[in-house]
């Protein structure tokens, strides 16, 4: 079982990363992936000019590694990939790529879903968008907390 967890300061090619990950796990019957990208609009006529993700060095990467370890304990996986950007990005840029490889698809789906809910709702990142020349911090939504709560009783 291989775990790749990276915090990246520069842009990455999600297609190439996923191809590499899939090729590294030939015994897995299924690979489930999620790609988060910078959206082009924050609503009608409100184009997003840029998105910035800040992190806190002493906490962010160690927290991502703990998250990967707990996904690995919960499901039977062949591999887990977790890439997350920091810094300033433009619309269309990849923000996060999570992929889980497993013998059976249910484990892969669940592990990727679990990892994304925790990256969004519990990992040490702060996101802001620039719209109309103004930076605006993005606050967590109530859905994010509900998404996280789903995993507590399982």
């Amino acid at each position, binding site marked *: 079982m291989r775990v790749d967890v990276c915090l990246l300061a520069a842009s990455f090619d999600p297609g190439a990363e996923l191809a590499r990950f899939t090729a590294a796990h030939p015994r897995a019957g299924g690979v489930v992936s999620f790609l*988060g990208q910078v959206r082009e609009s924050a609503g009608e006529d409100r184009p997003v000019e840029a998105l910035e*993700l*800040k992190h*806190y060095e*002493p*906490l962010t990467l160690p927290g991502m590694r703990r998250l990967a370890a707990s996904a690995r304990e919960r499901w039977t996986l062949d591999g887990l990939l977790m890439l*997350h950007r920091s810094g300033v990005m433009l619309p269309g840029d990849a*923000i*996060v790529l999570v992929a889980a490889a497993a013998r059976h698809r249910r484990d892969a789906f669940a592990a990727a879903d679990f990892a*994304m809910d925790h*990256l*969004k*709702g*519990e*990992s*040490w*990142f*702060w*996101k*802001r968008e620039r719209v109309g020349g103004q930076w605006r*911090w*993005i*606050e*967590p939504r109530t859905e*994010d907390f509900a998404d996280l709560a789903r995993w507590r009783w399982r």
Partner: protein
Amino acid sequence: MSVRLVFLGRLEDAAGGATREAAAGSLATLLARLEPDLARALTADRVRIAINGTLVADRTALVLADGDELAFLPPVSGG
């Protein structure tokens, strides 16, 4: 002879910068010396704090020593 304060997320705007130096001592004294609006933002319900990279569960009797890094962490929004 000081403590380094780190403001994450929207707290950076409230503080007017990502970091600041402050005198060592109790957290209560440190907060009392800040602008009242900033102190309020830092003590809001969902703001967590970490000292030297470790989350602090009980901040009531917290005392900062020279060279400590104190981070204020508002609700996260990753992904």
